């Protein structure tokens, strides 16, 4: 039977960004309904779960973005405790990152320590011998050294999404399926229809539909210029405890080896701009695995458990959109690209503040809706 729901806020998108937004809105005692779409290609369940401002920020980006990433990391522990999620239940833990200066890169990474120092990031350049001391399972044939970054974190994005979805159900925040299929005006409110025939009438709407935000935005007459950037991941099983940190490999699509739970290794990834299919391909998986086996030779014996892919929502300036749209009833929260897991918690908090017309507490001007953006470009696939 189809449902007819009246709420203060409807959130379109049931990935990490949409769910975190819904949770933060609910904590403000607003009534909320979430409309979700397909699970195919969803970024939130594809992600590795690294929470690493230091590895992900690049100095060509505005400083406000670094501040946002940093706040994203700092806010994780209070966010988890505010919603009653234990760190263990969502796989959250603090960890160091080893940013490997791979020999396959033509240029060295060592100069990155300069801006890290400037931003107050606790880091240290390690010689190849020091890398061997810190990470005895990595082969020095593959790197010229590394930057060791202290105290960043990882989370299991699948577990986090599930925990948030359960929290929402328990707090009377319905999560409807079938995707948004229609939008109408109803006496100044917005009437949203789903593919299952449900109707949600809302005073305000948050668009958080990841790579589908452009499509969803069009239904509201908005231009939300995000494109899907595919990334492939392989999950392997091997002996536990081989890595003491997350190995970040800034080559190709910026790969990583993340130990998600003891003996479970998440390895990626690619950046593919031109292949909107959820498949895994020989070129990408082959390269990911051969780089893994070069960096950690023992990995040649690890068992492949699973592989998947998902689509990161990217704007052409690679910054998110976190702002009210031209239609003041709508807030847009998307474009998180490579950092949506890191920014999950803080985005929910900021968007809830925007909905309540409160000052968000961080400068969001760089992330405004309607800022001048170039059209997307056909980048080559990176892996």
């Amino acid at each position, binding site marked *: 039977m189809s449902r007819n729901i009246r709420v203060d806020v409807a959130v379109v998108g049931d990935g990490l960004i949409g769910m975190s937004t819904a949770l933060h809105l609910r904590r403000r005692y607003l009534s909320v309904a979430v409309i979700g779409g397909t699970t195919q290609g969803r970024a939130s369940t594809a992600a590795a779960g690294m929470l690493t401002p230091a590895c992900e920020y690049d100095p060509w980006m505005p400083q406000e973005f670094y501040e946002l990433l940093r706040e994203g990391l700092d806010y994780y522990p209070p966010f988890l405790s505010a919603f009653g999620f234990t760190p263990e239940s969502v796989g959250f833990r603090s960890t160091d990152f080893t940013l490997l200066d791979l020999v396959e890169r033509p240029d060295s990474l060592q100069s990155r320590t300069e801006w890290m120092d400037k931003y107050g990031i606790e880091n240290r350049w390690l010689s190849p011998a020091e890398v061997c001391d810190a990470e005895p399972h990595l082969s020095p044939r593959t790197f010229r050294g590394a930057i060791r970054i202290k105290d960043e974190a990882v989370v299991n994005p699948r577990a986090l999404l599930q925990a948030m979805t359960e929290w929402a159900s328990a707090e009377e925040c319905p999560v409807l399926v079938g995707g948004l299929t229609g939008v109408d005006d109803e006496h100044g409110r917005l009437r949203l229809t789903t593919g299952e025939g449900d109707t949600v009438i809302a005073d305000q709407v948050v668009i958080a539909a990841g790579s589908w935000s452009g499509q969803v935005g069009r239904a509201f007459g908005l231009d939300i210029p995000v494109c899907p950037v595919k990334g492939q991941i392989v999950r392997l099983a091997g002996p536990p405890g081989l890595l003491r940190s997350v190995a970040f490999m800034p080559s190709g699509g910026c790969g990583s080896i993340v130990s998600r739970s003891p003996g479970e290794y998440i390895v990626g990834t690619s950046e593919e701009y*031109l292949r909107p299919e959820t498949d895994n391909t020989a070129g990408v998986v082959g390269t990911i695995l051969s780089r893994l086996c070069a960096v950690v030779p023992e990995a040649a014996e690890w068992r492949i458990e699973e592989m998947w892919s998902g689509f990161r929502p990217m704007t052409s300036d690679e910054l998110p959109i976190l702002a009210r749209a031209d239609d003041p009833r709508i807030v847009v929260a998307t474009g998180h690209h490579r950092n949506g897991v890191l920014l999950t918690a803080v985005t929910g908090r900021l968007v809830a503040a925007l909905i309540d017309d409160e000052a968000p507490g961080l400068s969001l001007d760089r992330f405004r809706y309607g800022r001048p953006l*170039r059209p997307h*470009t056909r*980048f*080559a696939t990176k892996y």
Partner: protein
Amino acid sequence: MNSFTIRAARPHADETTALLDWSVGHLDELERWAIRRQVPVPGPILAGIRRRYAEDGGRAPEPVPPVWDREPDSVPAGQVPEAALLAALERDLLLYAASLAEGRIDDLTVTTVPGVPAAFYAPQSRRLFLPDWLAEAVSGRLFAPTALFPEPPSATVSWLFFQSLVLTPPSLPSGPAAHVLGIRESD
């Protein structure tokens, strides 16, 4: 205010030969270029280059001086059959005029060449060579519609220049123009 102008030049037969010779000497980069950009190089063109590579072990004659460095007989871009594409390229590259000016590039002469496998850039003469089959197939969308993404985002055609292979001597590795010129396409 930065400017950017595109001119056109008609192809010479020796340019096709020289670009094919170069391709034989850089087959690895060529194959990678096509795969990573989802560019469907016509089978016979690629097969011909692979065959020559197999026969002469990747050694191709080095043109002296390279034909792509000579002054082209340029004509206004509006006078060639691919005028619409060149207008789009000029419009899109204008978005990067400031970065291009840093690399001292404020014009480009484009030649559409039959029978070549990729887009090539000759830095000396600022000439861009585009395969005729690619020029005919360039789309203003990022990708073709799929069930998951039925409405693909629109895209610039600037990649035809930024990702063209830079014509280096056979002994030197090449790379896409944006990389060689140090231009960030997304800034």
